[in-house]
């Protein structure tokens, strides 16, 4: 009787030890999975991206906004570290790379706002931007297409909308979100 009690306690201790030891391992695995999502595994080829200049279409978009979107996009894509290299439009080094995607951005909608109106009324004067982002292969095949919004509603200058937009685009075109073929257009909204 005494022996069986002893065996039971030993079994409990062993089970507890197994649970404790296996816990951190599982957590570590989950962290690793979050760091290297499917589609961007270490085994697969890493893609580079070339950011094209922003096309304002026939909208009356200020040149400073186009430049700000372009520059913020390059910055945000570099920050995400999802792509092996981020090239600018016209970069000669991109021509020789095998795994290159081209990011095209077309402005679809632009609502000019006012910083003063935002500060005075809070509810009006928001600057809003809606763009269509396309990831294309070198041959022109569309890999990913997204409609992304960016705006500034409360604090900050009008150009801050471009920063928010670029951040949302960088989130939307993570390699985990495309599987090599075109996907239906999804809308991702980001707000400050």
């Amino acid at each position: 009787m005494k022996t069986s009690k002893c065996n039971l306690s030993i079994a409990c201790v062993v089970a507890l030890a197994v649970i404790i030891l296996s816990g951190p391992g599982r957590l570590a695995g989950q962290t690793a999975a979050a760091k290297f999502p499917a589609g961007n595994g270490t085994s697969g080829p890493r893609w580079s991206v070339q950011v094209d200049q922003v096309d304002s279409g026939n909208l009356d978009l200020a040149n400073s906004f186009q430049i700000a979107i372009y520059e913020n996009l390059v910055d945000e894509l570099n920050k995400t570290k999802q792509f092996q290299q981020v090239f600018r439009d016209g970069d000669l080094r991109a021509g020789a790379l095998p795994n290159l995607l081209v990011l095209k951005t077309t402005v679809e909608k632009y609502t000019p706002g006012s910083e003063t109106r935002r500060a005075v009324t809070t509810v009006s004067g928001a600057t809003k931007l809606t763009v269509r982002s396309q990831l294309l292969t070198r041959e022109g095949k569309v890999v990913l297409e997204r409609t992304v919004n960016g705006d500034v509603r409360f604090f900050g200058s009008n150009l801050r909308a471009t920063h928010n937009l670029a951040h949302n685009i960088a989130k939307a075109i993570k390699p985990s979100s495309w599987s090599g073929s075109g996907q239906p257009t999804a809308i991702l909204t980001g707000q400050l």
Partner: protein
Amino acid sequence: MAFREPSLLLINIASALHSFRARTIAIVAQELLKESTEEAALHDGTAAIGEQMDRFVVSRSHREAYHPDRRRALWLSTMLICCSLTAPAQKITQRGDTSAPFSTRATHLLGFANARNNSTGTLSVQDDSLQFQQNGKPTAQVKVALVRNVLLGGESKQVGGLPMTLGKAAVPFGGGRVVSLFAHKKYDTLSFEYVDADGGIHGAIFQLTKGQGELVKNELIAQGATISSRQDQAPKENAAEAGHENK
């Protein structure tokens, strides 16, 4: 005869200036010339009564012609007026003649070489390059020949930054909103593109005091930067805001 020649000279100078005020002076000079000939006619007894009523300059006394000293004084004063009118034009064009480097205070918003975003410094055009110097930081520079699509814009921004925003938020009964209504300022935004050594296109935006953007743009164009086919864009703002700006 001695009177006529200087007045003709004045007319020539004034017509060369092509300005409204200069043309006015030319008219005055013509009147003077006309008057002198008619004064002579008066003395000859050939002028009719009431003939001298339609002119800018009318002599007080019809009994005799101007005294030579008075004429000289009038000429001297007219010449002085001419000189004072042409002086501002010389002042404006003086900027292009000097070889001193152009510089102005500016806020770098984003994109220029390795300069920090939202930093204030001195933007200058010298030695065929556009330079931005922050206090105590190395100078960021780009060759003017690589700069293209220089465009001007404008924006109205709240002054004071984050401390002012927090202060306004702390004012009770929405008083901060009233402050916001008046605490804004118009700025020029100078945006341009430039090409790096690898051919990659960069964009940069600077914020300058109103009126300075045009000077920097002109300086860049003078140094060989290319401008865009697009037009400069004025800021879009509502009428109330514009009204406050003009006050």
